[in-house]
């Protein structure tokens, strides 16, 4: 099978595409193929990995123009997948040498600066955690929490910080200062946690000008998230809370 892979050397460098012919068998993931290319064809190919089991969030990239975890994407069956994302330039523009019939296209995750090949600079994505102070203040004593209290935040807890939502968002594509969907889902995770006593600060952070108000509810994040976090739903709730509606999250 043919793989077309975006290559580049750093921020200033040009991007070009390299083509590799790789044998694939049933069960192979895109990550398996990338390792095979690094091992057999080009040891300089750079991409991130760790768990190879879709739990660590390392390997987000654009595969056939859809942001996905390379380790969770089966090569066979790639053709059938369509996330129905609202288009923006990074996922719309196709290199002239590629069409889906000709093989698999692998590119870095959009909306973050490319450092090398498929490795992007994750700092803008992670910066929001610090800027919005997305952590709990330690409590003096352990608390109880009903199962329904936990269930309310379960979906946001499942976020693996892979940045696929960030890379799929047309607003992030245009505004590099937008904190992005994952940080907002995490803000709601704390705001809606029945144990949190200083919840207002999470709402305030989420309603800052470069946060929830920037979101246009396009919902690409909901379609692309590999973990069912549905950050767009969280943002909708945060917006409503900002307008004084929907106060029953806690």
């Amino acid at each position, binding site marked *: 099978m043919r793989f077309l892979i975006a290559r580049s050397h750093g921020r200033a460098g040009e991007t070009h595409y390299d083509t590799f012919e790789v044998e694939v068998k049933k069960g192979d993931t895109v990550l398996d193929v990338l390792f095979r290319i690094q091992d057999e064809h080009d040891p300089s190919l750079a991409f*991130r990995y760790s768990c190879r089991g879709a739990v660590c969030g390392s390997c987000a990239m654009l595969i056939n123009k859809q942001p996905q975890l390379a380790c969770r994407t089966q090569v066979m069956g790639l053709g059938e997948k369509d996330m129905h994302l609202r288009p923006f330039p990074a996922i719309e523009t196709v290199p002239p040498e590629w069409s889906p019939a000709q093989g698999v296209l692998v590119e870095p995750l959009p909306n973050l600066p490319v450092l090398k090949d498929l490795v992007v600079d994750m700092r803008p994505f992670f910066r929001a955690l610090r800027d919005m102070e997305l952590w709990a203040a330690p409590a003096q004593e352990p608390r109880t929490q009903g199962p329904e209290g936990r269930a309310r935040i379960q979906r946001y807890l499942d976020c693996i910080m892979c940045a696929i939502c960030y890379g799929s968002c047309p607003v992030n594509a245009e505004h590099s200062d937008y904190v992005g969907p994952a940080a907002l889902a995490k803000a709601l995770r704390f705001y809606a946690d029945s144990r949190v006593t200083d919840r207002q600060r999470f709402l305030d952070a989420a309603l800052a000008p470069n946060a929830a108000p920037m979101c246009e509810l396009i919902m690409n994040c909901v379609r692309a998230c590999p973990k069912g976090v549905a950050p767009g739903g969280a943002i909708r709730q945060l917006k409503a809370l900002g307008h004084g509606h929907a106060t029953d999250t806690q």
Partner: protein
Amino acid sequence: MTIRHDVLIVGAGLAGLRTAIGLAEHCDVAVVTKTHPLRSHSVAAQGGINAALGKDDSWERHAFDTVKGSDYLADQDAVEVLTKNAAAAVYECERWGTAFSRNDDGTIAQRPFGGASFPRTCYAADRTGHNLLHTVYEQALRLGVTVYEEWFATSLVVSGGRVTGLVALELSSGDVLGLASRAVVLATGGFGRVYGRSTNALINTGDGCAMALRAGAPLKDMEFVQFHPTTLYGSNILITEGARGEGGVLTNSEGHRFMGEYAPDQMELAPRDIVARAIQTEIDSGRGVDGQYVWLDLRHLGASRIKERLPGIREICMHFGGVDPVDEPIPVQPGQHYSMGGVHCDWTGKTPVKGLYAVGETSCMSVHGANRLGGNSLLETLVFGAVTARTVAKDLASTGEPDVTAVEDAAFRERERLQGLLLRKTGSRPTDIRRELGPVMDRLVGVFRNETGLTEALGRVRGLQGQAQRASLGETDREFNYALVRALELENMLLLAEAITLGALMRRESRGAHWRTDYPQRNDEEFLKHTLVTGAPGALAVQYTDVHLGRFEVKERKY
């Protein structure tokens, strides 16, 4: 340029971050990690963390289960610290925000786990490690802990008999830099990737153990490696006991349900090690499929039951194996799962080398002895992260400034060495060496071991070490040179492979996870002892040291 901190911690999993949190308010601490902290293998732990929270449970019972599970090789003083501090460690994470699963009355829910006499495993759905790691990371952010992300530590620097810093490769630039410190804590996790088949993350290559050995610290009990019976053929992702608990059956290439011959009463639900040995026996006797795996068949449960009760397992099979268990049986085989051995240290985290500490899966204190109980290793990272932080803080008071010159010299030498490796135009490819190492370890130092196999493995590993010294990477770039990282990891794994194999060869008994077909009995007279490996690659030596016994009398391990 040499960077300076009071304390350097290598590794940003649960153990490393918990240690950093403990030190953050006492001194200038920095964490060096080869991946972003949230990518650490701790994130993958599913099942849970043990603590005697219930009124009918006690730390003593937890301690007894742990010691018995260890086949009496655990140090009982260390186990006592582990179990006495367990509840506090769980409650600390609760206070920091971890969303544990709950009982109806709002208390932390607990479930039964293998080898435990009481349901004492706390969990956060089936994502316990994920929830704990995110919490501990958040707290490290809150405290402003300095993290050198995507810096690969290559070696420790020793001067005047004490560790005075380390050398690391900054992945983004390709620069090799010295970092000087008054203490170094190794928290680099396990070394599962020494094996070809492992449930571990790809980054679990045991770098910390290899660095410690080269710096003169012994490795302890390396031959004790836990194997999980059912890992998905291909990627070796864990297929939990849950699949068998729901009624999944194991069949061989002849379609025969073979567990009847090995454990007629418990069948598929026999203890892990028994099931692992049964599957391996089928494969070794030519009744494996393609000589590689057996089937875990769920089809008879029906689509609705599979979808309702085992959605996670179905998802794993579809995404990672391209198999839907509703329509097809799941191909499974045993795989490496946990490393009981590690850097020799006492329960305070101190190694015999001054200024060097170890904690988490990379250490061997030893709380797991010959066999770890599920749910005890997450606990180990948190309890001993806090303990080790206290030890380091105390020792700093009497520790002078680091030897910056020695660190600069070491960085210079490491730069030369890596240059040499990068410039070498001919030689074996690291890929080919790696592909040979895995199967040698799986086959000869795996579930079953014997003198002939281990001797052969030792020779082959040493041969591969020789090849690795003359390896050539091919054309690479300076920035994000993952081929270089993987070559350095391979060097580390080859050293550990030798230590594991040598330990297994010399231990002429069967105990816990170490199963010698030629010595099927436990032999307390000779081997109720910890193995210590020291020395240089190709010439490692074995010694033994006493187990710290205590309140629990050594008995036969029977369930």
